[in-house]
Every structure is written in structure tokens, then in C-alpha cells.
């Protein structure tokens, strides 16, 4: 078996006395889509934020394409990286937020070109061309000059996806990308994500959209109380869950 694109090993994370992640192991192969489901407070978002080091983990480690995230290994020691190096690592990891977090004072096009130019040092015309291509891919070519607040929630999230893809990341993390959207806008975002999955992008998606998981996921992961309870192909986890907690959760959301 090849080395996984994302390798999460024994990750622990506490906020004060509250233990949010209690030893999480997760492997995601290149080109795979992993969907993480679970009740709120189960640690799904924290896990996702640990993968790109937005949260510093207390124990365990994460590697992306064999590289330690947030640390440098020398022998059997892990040295904490400086912020500059962590920022450089993050350019390999796309992140899509629940609340989009687009930069409101920049146009759609500037939102997409900002990181490729300033974080990766790409030439501006190359970044512009890439932005044009990505905005077409998410169906927003005509909105390049608009400001985020002039767009609907669904359109904003599609811009956010284009912005994440502009870094040409090795993996894209989605943190409940449709939870802040009006119901009729969820579909357009999921369509973009499905197309992305079909094109072979490695994705980890935290979501409550069970239908999306069933249709797109290679692996569904069910988390509860800071642990992965079970994982497997969608039919196995969603239709024949082995654990009571999975069954209880699914009976509520389906």
C-alpha cells in the first residue's frame, strides 16, 4: 500500500480540561474523498483544523504527502516549525470555511489571486489566468469584478472553493461548507464539490449532508466524543453501521 496523502496518527487535543480529540487515526489516499460525519461537539471540525495546523495538537502527528505538518523531524525528535514555515506548508492544504471568510474588501478575482501571488510567489499573469480558469470551473466567470457582499451565500462559497484551489493544494479540507447556506443554495455548492471529487482531488469533508457522503465519498468516517467510532465505504457505514452510536446518529439525520 502506498503512503497515504494525509496521515493522522494518535492525535490528541484539549481546550483546558475539555478533551476534544482523544487519539484519532485517519489515513486518506491520494485522489480519495473522505467524508466525516458525527454529532456536533464530536471533534470533526477540530480534527480538520488540526490537519492544517490552525489548531496546535497536544499529542500525535499529522503528515501530508509524507511531510510533518507544523514540525520538522530529526531522528526521533519533532522540532516545532516557525510560523513562516507553517504558512508555507499550508499552501499545500486548501481550506474551505463554514462562513466562507472571503476578504470583503477585495474583489472576487483578487480573493482568488492573493495567495498564489503573495504566498507562492507566482507571477501575477499566471495567477490571473488560473483565477479565470477556476472561476469558470465554479460557474462564476461573470462575477470576477464583484465584491463578496454582492454575492449570494452559495456564490460566496463557490468563490471560497476557487480561492482554496488556486494554491493547487495536495488536499482540500471542507469544514461544513453548506451549513451556513439557505437550503436552496446548498445544491450549487455540492455540485461544485462533486465535480471536484470526480476530477480526482483529495478531499476531506466535514458535513451533515448524508446524501453527498453516499454519492461521492470513498470512505465515510463517523466520529463521536473525540474518537473515530467507525469508518468504511458509504454503504457499510451508512446502511449497515456496526455501532449503536452510529445507528442512533443516522436515525436522527436521515
Amino acid at each position, binding site marked *: 500500500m502506498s503512503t497515504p496523502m494525509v496521515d493522522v496518527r494518535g492525535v490528541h487535543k484539549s481546550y483546558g480540561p475539555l478533551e476534544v480529540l482523544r487519539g484519532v487515526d485517519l489515513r486518506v489516499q491520494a485522489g480519495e474523498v473522505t467524508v466525516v460525519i458525527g454529532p456536533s461537539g464530536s471533534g470533526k471540525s477540530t480534527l480538520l483544523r488540526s490537519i492544517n495546523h490552525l489548531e496546535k495538537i497536544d499529542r500525535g502527528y499529522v503528515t501530508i504527502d509524507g511531510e510533518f505538518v507544523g514540525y520538522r523531524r530529526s531522528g526521533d525528535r519533532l522540532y516545532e516549525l516557525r510560523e513562516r514555515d507553517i504558512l508555507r*506548508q499550508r499552501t499545500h492544504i486548501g481550506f474551505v470555511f463554514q462562513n466562507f471568510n472571503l*476578504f470583503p474588501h*477585495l474583489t472576487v478575482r483578487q480573493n482568488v489571486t492573493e495567495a498564489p501571488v503573495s504566498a507562492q510567489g507566482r507571477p501575477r499573469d499566471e495567477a490571473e489566468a488560473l483565477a479565470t480558469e477556476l472561476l469558470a470551473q465554479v460557474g462564476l466567470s461573470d462575477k470576477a469584478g464583484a465584491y463578496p*457582499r454582492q454575492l449570494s451565500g452559495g456564490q460566496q462559497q463557490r468563490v471560497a472553493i476557487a480561492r482554496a484551489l488556486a494554491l493547487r493544494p495536495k488536499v482540500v479540507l471542507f469544514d461544513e461548507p453548506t451549513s451556513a447556506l439557505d437550503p436552496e443554495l446548498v445544491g450549487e455548492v455540492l455540485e461544485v464539490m462533486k465535480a471536484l471529487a470526480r476530477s480526482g482531488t483529495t478531499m476531506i469533508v466535514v458535513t451533515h449532508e448524508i446524501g453527498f457522503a453516499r454519492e461521492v465519498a470513498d470512505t465515510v468516517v463517523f466520529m463521536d466524543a473525540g474518537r473515530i467510532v467507525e469508518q468504511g465505504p458509504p454503504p457499510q457505514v451508512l446502511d449497515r453501521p456496526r455501532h449503536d452510536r452510529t445507528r442512533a446518529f443516522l436515525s436522527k439525520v436521515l
Partner: protein
Amino acid sequence: MTAPAVIEEEAAESAGSLTVVKARHPGRWIAGAVVAVLLAMAVNALITNPAWDWPVVGAYLFHPSVLHAVLFTVELTALGIVLGFLLGTVLALMRLSRVPLLTSVAWGYVWLFRSVPLILQLLFWYNLAALYKQISFGVPFGPAFFSVDSMELIGPVTAAALGLALHQAAYAAEIVRGGFLSVEPGQLEAAAALGIPRARQILRIRLPQAMRSIVPAAGNEIIGLVKGTSVVYIMALPELFYQVQVIYNRNGRVIAMLLVAAIWYLVLTTVLSAAQYYVERRFGRGLARALPPTPVQRARRILTVRRAARRQRLAANGGGQR
């Protein structure tokens, strides 16, 4: 089935043949008239009372010595604001940093310079030479490479600019810090998640969004400082307020000269207020769905609406009554 039909009939009637009579507001007219009369009285009192000495005001308004004083006031203000906000921004960043010593030094600075009255601070700087005769540059606590006389290094103008800037920096630090804190945390997370370098995060993402709350407060400060420079008169520097005092001590036209100064302060603050409006507009981009119109655009719009209404009225009168 019958009820909706009746309502429809009524609606058709009101839309077609009923005339709308606008409500009268006699109270508004009376209030308007009272204020108009009071205003006219005030203007009359200003113009007709010879004690205001308008001819003297006119003679001195553009007098070279007054113009020089205005220029000096502008220079002092500019120095105070630019240096003050530069240092203030550094202090704000120190305060927001993760280094405890930097945080507390920044806090201490703001505490000290906000607590001591400006006039006192200015006098301290003015008298610095009495405290430290020489200022040396070299290794801290070690040998000095060269020294200068405090008197030479810090003349009255430098002392004034320095005093204003250092005092201003304390306020500016809090304004800039407040602006930075007003930026939604999600914005910084997004910038960090995209791997945007730290300095770029501050300049490109954080500062422009902070400016929206910094600019109104900074506008206040600048306008405050324009007038605040008048405190410098205690150092006998020829800014506007000191200069008019010099003139009225000579010619005895106290009121007229104070008016000259007041007019110039009005002019300066008016220009600054207008500038502030446009700067705010600039940083409001993308934050409202559409930018508010500029005064010029607004005036033009009102005129077109009026004109259209009048045309409509004429058309209605012509068609309806004959």
C-alpha cells in the same frame, strides 16, 4: 366568492379616479420659520455690530504673517499626526504581539502619555536641555560614539513637534489597536489557512479592514490636533493662535484678530472633514453592497428627481383639468 370581487372594484376605483391629498404639517412650517428668524437675527448681529471689526478681519485674513502662521500650524499638525500614527501603529502592534514585555511597554506608554496633560509634556520637552545637557549615541551603558547638545538637537520647533507626536501616539495606538480588533477573527484564519506571509496579512488583509473603524476616529484626532496645536503658543512659536495674539497686542483689535484665527481654523477643519468623507468611502469598498453617493452625486440625483416630478405635475395638470 363575492368579497374579493368587491375589494377589487374598490381598488380599481381608488387607483383611477381618487385624488391623493398630502397631509399638512403646520408644526414643521412654524418651527422652520422660528429657526429662520433666529438665524437671520444672528447673522444680522454678526454683520451690523461694528465691534466685530469686519474691515480689520478682511485686512488681516490674508496678511503674510497670518498666512505663515497658518502654514506653520498645518506643518505642526501634519508632523504630529504622521509621526503620532506611525509610532501609534508600532505601539498597537507591540500591544497585540505575543511578547509580554512588548505588551506591557506599549501599555505603559499609553498610560503615561495619556495621563499627563499635553501642555505639561510640551514644557518638559522644551526644558529637556535643563534635564539632560548632552545626548550621546553609542553602546547602551557603554562608551559613546558622539554626543550633541540637547539645545542643538531639540530646538523649540522640534520640541513642539515631538511633544505633539508623542502625545498623539498614545491616542493613535488605541485607535489602531481598536481597528485591528474590529476585524473579524475569521479573516485572519482565512489568511493563515491560505499561507499568506505575516507582514502581508497585516498590510493586505487586516489593515484595510481595520481602516474602516480607524478613519472616523483618526479624523477626530486630526481635527482635534489642528486646534490642539494652539497649545504650542506657550513655547512662543509662531503658529496661528500665537501669531494673532502678537498682532492684537500690537494693534489692540482683539476680537477681529480672534475672528481671523477662528476663520482659518474653520477652513482647515472643513477641508479635513471633506477629505475624511472621501477616505472613508475609499475604505468602504465592498463593505456595503453599493457605495453611498458623494455629495455631488446626491445633489445631481435630487435635481433630476425634482425635475421629473415637476414635469409629471405639469403633464397631470394639463391633461386632467382641461
